[in-house]
């Protein structure tokens, strides 16, 4: 008892300590148990004091029931178990050493890019697991897949799909790796190879599994990304600060304590200095902005409108180029060279390399603060990238699926363009080409552009070399590239089920290539990207990509006639029809429940309930905000009261004899 009193007198006079939960031990009953362990290590006193406290509580005074001792022992055993488990499951700590190394040298901003790569690797790995387990294994193990199906009422023109690859030369076989034709076309890589007879007697319906596993996987991705967005959104909302803008906290949180190399330290110090200078300049700018006249404001807004119009025009021109490229590459596929077939990905890449430069130049004219400029350019690049991908899919669909021109002569007999007898495989090939091309671009950039640039900067001192300098690793643009690649993989997963495997391999290799580029060819960027809102940004980009993929997939699954000479869904009018057909085999009670659950009344009631819950949460948040304001004012008043009382006391003491 005496020791703890002594201890309390010796501890520093922080307010927080006297209100620390650990000191409420006298009032709370014996149930601290393992909480005591948890709180002890989070206590702000020195090690000696903590060990003393631990001894005190273990040996003297309080009656520690056997239940509490058991809990403590159990907690300690659990921690040992966790440590052992972590030693065994090192596989989940993929690339941990590399990530730590990158964080140490380049900071958490660039490390967040590599962290994101790791996340995408796991997303693709999940897809590979699901598809192998639910589709590939059942098909290879138990089914006879060489039956060519003939759909009802199909004429000969729609069954004209040849699977003969014997007449291809060796050179063509080599090209097939790049274009996905020949041997690859009829392998399990593409949808066309999964020819399974519809058999109602089998327990396991591969058709249903194919549809549901892909839809389920996309839904799981959606939930996973949403969960990550919500955690970073909460932090972002807190930062938005309805109270006062708190940029000044930066001087306490900016310095990264992990930095060990002197060059990085100098660079960090430079960047902090630059940030502070920019902040001061920003303050001056804000004052000037207040003093803008009406005339200047209207001029500025007109200019901004004009610039946005120019940007829209540029994007429209880019889409037209993509349209032309698609038309050229979708001509009679049998006689096209590899270069012609790769025209759409090439054009999309060129568009996405040159247009951001123009965006960057145009945004300077808009008269915004540097931060806003960077964010605006980034948003425009994201929109450009995803919409160029979307436009490509649209033009492809227009051509191959006759979307919008169902009465054209080549579309009438089959419901899709009869030039593409197995159109799913054809679309899968396009996605395969795009994925392959994005990987090739990564390789090419690393070795054909970064490396010469570094050699030039190192060995030559001409004006060009000095102007170019070493490359800077721009995180947002790299992330945009991998998000676009992932969108392509998600779009192609229905047509090319093993595309995520290709994605896994390419991400694995990309990690090491980018790490090599980073360490050898790049200098740390002066504009150090903030790790905090990057997670939110990356996940939002990924979510947009997922929406794009889901929209196109949804259209294909629900409205397009599957091809007849190949694939799982040849006998259905749309792939979605598998579900109602399978459900008709369910017992009547299950069907009844399903009818109720999907009826209008039930959905309406559910919607009402959700809106009610949402209203409760929103009103609670608003009430909390008001309470915070009130408490803030109260706190300031308390301190003023305290000083008033002190002054009063002082004046009384003066009058004492």
């Amino acid at each position, binding site marked *: 008892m005496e020791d703890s009193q002594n201890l309390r007198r010796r501890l520093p006079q*922080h307010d927080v300590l006297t209100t620390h939960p650990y000191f409420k031990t006298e009032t709370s009953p014996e149930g601290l148990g393992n909480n005591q362990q948890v709180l002890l290590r*989070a206590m702000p006193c020195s090690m000696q004091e903590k060990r003393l406290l631990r001894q005190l509580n273990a040996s003297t005074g309080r009656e520690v029931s056997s239940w509490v001792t058991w809990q403590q022992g159990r907690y300690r055993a659990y921690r040992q178990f966790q440590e052992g488990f972590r030693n065994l499951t090192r596989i989940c700590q993929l690339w941990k050493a590399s990530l730590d190394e990158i964080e*140490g040298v380049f900071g958490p901003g660039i490390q967040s890019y590599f962290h994101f790569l790791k996340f995408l690797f796991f997303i693709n790995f999940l897809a590979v697991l699901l598809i192998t387990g639910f589709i590939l294994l059942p098909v290879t193990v138990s089914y006879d897949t060489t039956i060519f199906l003939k759909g009802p009422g199909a004429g000969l023109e729609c069954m004209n799909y040849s699977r003969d690859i014997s007449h291809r030369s060796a050179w063509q076989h080599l090209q097939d790796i790049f274009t996905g034709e020949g041997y690859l076309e009829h392998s399990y890589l593409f949808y066309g190879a999964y020819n399974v007879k519809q058999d109602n007697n089998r327990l396991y319906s591969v058709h249903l599994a194919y549809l549901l596993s892909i839809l389920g996987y996309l839904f799981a991705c959606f939930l996973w990304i949403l969960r990550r967005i919500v955690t970073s959104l909460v932090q972002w909302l807190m930062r938005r600060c309805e109270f006062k803008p708190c940029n000044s*906290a930066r001087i306490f*949180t900016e310095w990264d304590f992990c930095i060990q190399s*002197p060059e*990085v330290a100098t660079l960090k*110090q430079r960047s902090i200095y630059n940030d502070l200078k920019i902040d001061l300049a920003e303050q001056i700018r804000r004052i000037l902005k207040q003093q803008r006249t009406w005339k200047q404001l209207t001029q500025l807004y007109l200019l901004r409108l004009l610039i946005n119009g120019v940007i829209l025009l540029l994007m429209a021109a880019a889409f037209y180029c993509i349209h032309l490229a698609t038309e050229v590459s979708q001509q009679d596929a049998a006689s096209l060279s590899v270069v012609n077939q790769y025209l759409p990905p090439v054009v999309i890449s060129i568009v996405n390399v040159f247009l951001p430069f123009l965006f960057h130049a145009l945004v300077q004219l808009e008269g915004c603060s540097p931060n806003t400029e960077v964010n605006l350019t980034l948003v425009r690049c994201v929109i450009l990238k995803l919409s160029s991908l979307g436009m490509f899919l649209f033009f492809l669909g227009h051509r191959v699926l006759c979307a919008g021109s169902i009465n054209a002569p080549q579309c009438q007999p089959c419901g899709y363009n009869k030039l593409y007898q197995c159109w799913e495989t054809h679309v899968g090939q396009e996605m395969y080409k795009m994925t392959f091309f994005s990987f090739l671009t990564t390789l090419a950039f690393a070795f054909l552009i970064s490396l010469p640039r570094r050699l030039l900067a190192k060995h030559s001192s001409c004006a060009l070399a000095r102007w170019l300098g070493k490359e800077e690793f721009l995180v947002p643009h790299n992330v945009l590239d991998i998000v676009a690649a992932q969108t392509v993989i998600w779009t192609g997963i229905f047509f090319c089920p093993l595309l995520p495997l290709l994605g896994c391999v390419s991400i694995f290799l990309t990690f090491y290539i980018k790490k090599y580029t980073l360490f050898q060819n790049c200098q740390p960027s002066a504009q150090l990207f903030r790790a905090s809102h990057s997670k939110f940004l990356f996940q939002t980009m990924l979510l947009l990509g997922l929406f794009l993929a889901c929209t196109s997939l949804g259209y294909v699954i629900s409205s397009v006639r599957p091809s007849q000479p190949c694939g799982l869904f040849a006998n259905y009018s749309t792939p979605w029809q598998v579900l109602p057909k399978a459900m008709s085999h369910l017992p009547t009670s299950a069907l009844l429940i399903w009818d109720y659950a999907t009826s209008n009344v039930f959905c309406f009631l559910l919607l009402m309930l959700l809106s009610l819950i949402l209203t409760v949460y929103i009103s609670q948040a608003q009430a909390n905000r008001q309470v915070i304001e009130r408490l803030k004012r109260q706190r300031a008043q308390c*301190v003023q009261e305290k000083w008033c009382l002190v002054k009063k006391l002082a004046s009384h003491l003066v009058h004492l004899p």
Partner: protein
Amino acid sequence: MGNKQTIFTDEQLDAYQDCTFFTRKEILRLHGRYHELAPNMVPMDYKRDPCVTLPMQLIVNMPELKENPFKERIVQAFSEDGEGNLSFNDFVDMFSVLSETAPRELKAIYAFKIYDFNTDNFICKSDLEQTLNKLTKEELTEEEVTLVCEKVIDEADMDADGKLGFPDFENMISKAPDFLSTFHIRI
């Protein structure tokens, strides 16, 4: 690994595990690092809790701390005598608070101690000026430093006393989500 070491008793290792965020292996590794800072001063046998402290100069030359502008303040904040001499207990304590798993509240308390240069339990204007000068290696001009310090106090001071108390500091830190990832030393 646990039963073969002869540096600490099991009871000591348990105590360290309870009082810090480290596992047994990490504590032994930390002892190795502490020992190699001064092999002739630090004994290999800690079973009897020897009273060995290392001076600040040895600690601030560690690669993890060498490039940190606040290295002296960090070591002083964790030393018992306030001068920067760290015993092994303080050494482990320091890296435990700066480790990845330490909670934000604990880190905020020690960050406050570190940035409070004159140890008066308040971060006043002179403390802020010193922080800023250490961060920018004194490259900002005097007026710029004053401007920034005034802005910080203006934004963060909740109880209007012209300096930052611990509640003000903690409130400001809670709005900076970078804090947890930057106030972290990996060892």
